[in-house]
């Protein structure tokens, strides 16, 4: 892994960093929406990995197709999760995950 010429490893290291920051967002933040942002970062990192391997190894279209489906599922996940956040806010009056300790309706 040299610095002057960018290859597969550079993209992998980049997506590893993005993934780790996303995991930190999910694990350490208490705002539910910021936790969702962490999930989006994790999905983005996974997509970058898929595209990087598709570009650098076989050159087939499959990795890119998987990334497209990943984006589609991320959109669906965001819609449902934000709806859950809104419902949580209506029931509990807060979206702080430290305060929402009960799952009763």
């Amino acid at each position, binding site marked *: *892994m040299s*610095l002057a010429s960018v290859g597969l490893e550079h993209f992998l290291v980049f997506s590893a960093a993005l993934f*780790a920051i996303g995991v930190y967002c999910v694990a350490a*933040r208490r705002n539910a929406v*910021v936790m969702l942002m962490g999930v989006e*970062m994790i999905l983005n990192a996974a997509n970058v990995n898929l*595209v990087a391997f598709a570009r650098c190894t076989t050159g087939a279209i*499959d990795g*890119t197709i998987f990334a497209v489906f990943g984006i589609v599922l991320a959109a669906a996940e965001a*819609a449902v999760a934000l709806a859950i956040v809104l419902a949580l806010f209506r029931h509990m009056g807060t979206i702080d995950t430290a305060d929402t300790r009960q799952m009763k309706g």
Partner: protein
Amino acid sequence: MHETATGGSALLTGLGAAAFYLVCAVTIGSSLAVAFWRNAVYSAFALVGTFLGVAGIYVFLAADFLAVLQLMIYVGGILVLMLFAIMLTSKIAESHRAPRSVGAWAAGSLCAGLLAILVLLAVETPWKVSPAREAEPLTGAIGEALLTRYLLPFEVASVVLLAALVGAVVIARGVRWRREEP
């Protein structure tokens, strides 16, 4: 370390490599801002930088269609949705409290360990890379693959999107299924 394996397979050199590092720095910096800014609205605006940076990374990977998709869906859709959710749910009083839970140091060390393992894995594994190819436009190939080999996942994805849409509306509106008698 593996210059012999990756010698002829460099995707970017010279000015391209410098641009790659710049985009990487912007992306990682803004995602750190998302993780550490106390105000959720600032986090959402920093997320713009992360999504734009990932779109730039797709450009470096010659995935033009994915870069446009990233801009349209993430920046144009998901981010607006998140901003709406923040504005609908946040209270001013909340910003005075600690934004992180008690286990922030534990989470940070966990993520640092995870990052170290992943970087070691990425750098030390002798990936079988092929020589660098010419970048081709991907849109036509993706469309063809979606309607031939990946037709079933394509249709299932549309059903999933519809189900998520209906589910999101039902959850967000708070429909009561047991109707109460007056």
